[in-house]
């Protein structure tokens, strides 16, 4: 590629890449009604009701939303508001397992003949973007014009995480089924399966699994963070630029995570909605790091216990990778649909050095994939200068963390960008209200 976006080298720490995923069960699960971008689903079960694996327990609310299904068989014991990592509250449904893991009788492979059937099936499947964002997948495919590129995201550029790698190594069949269905019902010109070069086995495996399909090109991309960022990946695979506030579809592209595609394939085969998730369990505090397939709603604590528990008290526990993951307040929060890793970091790993004066080294400016000017942004944010914040590029910040990672002064750069973006949203809301 003649020109690539800037980025950084991060430590890989992919200790679990060679470990096949192990399936676990849970005695109790607590399933939030919002594990996606959009409106929370509405609970349709009552306390005391008996459910089975795959029973609908909360129905989709509005266009951008997703239904929620029971991940164990047993009794609903509690429906209670839960604090979500974005700071809002939504109901969560607690189910005590009867240990049977019996499937709901209604479960059967969906009959699909048209594009509408396909989109409807995706809607019912409860599948959301499993790379971490949780955008309802059916919305992505509900397009009314031909798509130039389907970009399958197997980059997995975050340190530690190997759950996508495991999906690619273990679920080639599901990926193929999913891809064939997508190509059958959605008009797509080309498919690029993008994987970072450091995952050689995954590249080979995907070449075997889908490389023979006409439109498909399996592409090994340079290992540079944040290769898996949607806009970054689209640019590096198609050279198309997704502008400020635009979606991939605006430039004729659909981006889908490889695990999401596998989930589609598996749903089409069995009709069992998204009720379990492969998560990488790692970090310096975990006794036996591994990949675990856990029922959605399993408390992180139970997943860590499945991995032998902690060797030492963790300093931070994360949903997702260390670059963009979310620090959770306690280990009783559940595994979500879009959870791809849970990490328990030691004090050394989660080093929080003290911020000192900016020495204007320019590292943040030169490593930002999108050419944002963080020092100018910070100054504008301090002055509450809305135009300045926009001019510095806050709106296109994807919060990848490159700027903070290499900052010698340990400035909270990414964090400032997030606050600046929040300020922009607040101002936009006020303007809207004023009108």
């Amino acid at each position, binding site marked *: 590629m003649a020109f690539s976006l800037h980025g950084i080298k991060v430590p890989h720490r992919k200790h679990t890449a060679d470990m096949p995923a192990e399936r676990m069960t849970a005695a109790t699960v607590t399933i939030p009604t919002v594990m996606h971008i959009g409106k929370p689903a509405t609970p349709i079960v009552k306390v005391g009701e008996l459910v089975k694996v795959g029973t609908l327990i909360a129905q989709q609310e509005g266009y951008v939303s997703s239904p929620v299904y029971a991940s164990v068989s047993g009794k609903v014991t509690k429906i209670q508001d839960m604090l979500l990592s974005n700071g809002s509250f939504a109901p969560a449904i607690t189910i005590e397992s009867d240990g049977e893991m019996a499937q709901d009788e209604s479960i059967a492979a969906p009959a699909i003949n048209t594009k509408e059937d396909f989109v409807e099936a995706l809607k019912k499947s409860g599948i959301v973007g499993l790379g971490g964002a949780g955008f309802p997948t059916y919305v992505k495919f509900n397009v009314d014009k031909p798509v130039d590129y389907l970009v399958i995201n197997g980059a997995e550029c975050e340190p530690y995480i190997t759950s996508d790698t495991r999906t690619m190594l273990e679920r080639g069949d599901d990926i193929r089924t999913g891809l064939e269905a997508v190509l059958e019902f959605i008009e797509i010109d080309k498919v690029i399966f993008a994987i970072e070069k450091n995952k050689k086995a995954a590249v080979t495996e995907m070449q075997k699994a889908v490389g023979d399909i006409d439109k498909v090109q399996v592409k090994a991309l340079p290992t540079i963070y944040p290769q898996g960022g949607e806009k970054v990946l689209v640019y590096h695979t198609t050279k198309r630029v997704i502008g400020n506030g635009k979606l991939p579809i605006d430039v004729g592209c659909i981006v889908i995570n490889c695990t999401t595609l596998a989930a589609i394939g598996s749903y089409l085969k069995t009709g069992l909605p998204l009720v379990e998730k492969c998560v990488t369990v790692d970090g310096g505090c975990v006794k036996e790091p591994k990949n675990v397939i856990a029922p959605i709603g399993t408390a992180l604590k139970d997943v860590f216990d499945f991995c032998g528990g902690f060797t030492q008290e963790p300093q931070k526990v994360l949903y997702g990778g260390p670059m963009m993951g979310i620090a959770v307040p306690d280990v009783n929060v559940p595994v979500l649909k879009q959870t791809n890793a849970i990490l328990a970091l030691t004090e050394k790993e989660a080093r929080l050095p003290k911020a000192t004066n900016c020495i204007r080294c*320019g590292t943040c400016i030169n490593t930002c994939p999108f050419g944002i000017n963080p020092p100018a942004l910070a100054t504008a944010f301090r002055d509450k200068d809305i135009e300045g914040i926009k001019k510095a590029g806050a709106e296109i910040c994807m919060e990848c963390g490159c700027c903070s990672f290499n900052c010698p002064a340990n400035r909270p750069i990414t*964090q400032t960008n997030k606050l600046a973006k929040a300020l922009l949203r607040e101002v936009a809301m006020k303007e809207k209200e004023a009108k």
Partner: protein
Amino acid sequence: MENKLHVAASPHIHSGRSTQKIMLDVIIALLPAAIAGVVIFGLQALLVIAVSVVTCVLGEFLFNLIIKKEQTISDLSAVVTGLILALNLPANAPVWQVVVGAIFAIIIVKGLFGGIGKNFVNPAATARVFMLIAFASLAEPAFPKDVDAVSGATPLAQLANNQLPVLKDLFLGNIGGAIGETCTLALLIGGIYLLAKKVITWHIPVAFIGTAFLFTLAIEGGNIEMALAWILSGGLFIGAIFMATDYVTSPATPFGKIVFGIGAGLITVLIREWGKYPEGVSFAILLMNILNPYIDSLTARKLYGGGKK
């Protein structure tokens, strides 16, 4: 026990890069030039270096103490300032003058503007200019132990009289001048170290020295030997490698750095050729430091997708 977890915004890991490590690398990179200076000019040079470094560190320490600011001397930037200033002074500089210059650098230029990262001009370069103007005797350089100071002249003075110094002496530093500026070889070793450690990029030094070379070559009517002698003389290499690359006072982007380097190279030669002073490197850096905010904003990176909605 569960509520002991630390909650903070991502990213949760850091590369471990720090201001202190960067400054330590700069100090390591300056050591060859400092050692060469002591070998060439004798223990007198060591005294100047020690006085300058100690004054800078102590000055910053006391300044922070008086204005009740958190101590910053552990970031080692004061050591770097003291070291660079000393290497820009002749070995025979009077101790009291070194002390005054170091205090000027660390308190007037750096401290009063808010400390590390806030000074808009390079402390060492500014202090050198200040001392050159304030203490006329400093314009008369020290000479190596084995060179006869009476019959000798600095290479810049020789060049001004159209004499060609021995290029090998210029490269190895066996000539009159400031402590750390004469041994080009040592400076290059330091520069390569900084490049390898990714503390600096090639843009400023190459643009600075390259421009100075080409401009001089044009003035000298294409005489490559004369042009080489000009760029190997005076403080061009120490200025281009160590002072013009100061993060705080130079542009952030590669393009900005090249503009900065070209500007500094042009001004250096203009002063050397037509100015009152034999040497123009520090003046050139100082002037470009002042232009830096403009260069920075004119050479800023473009936002991905133009940033437009």
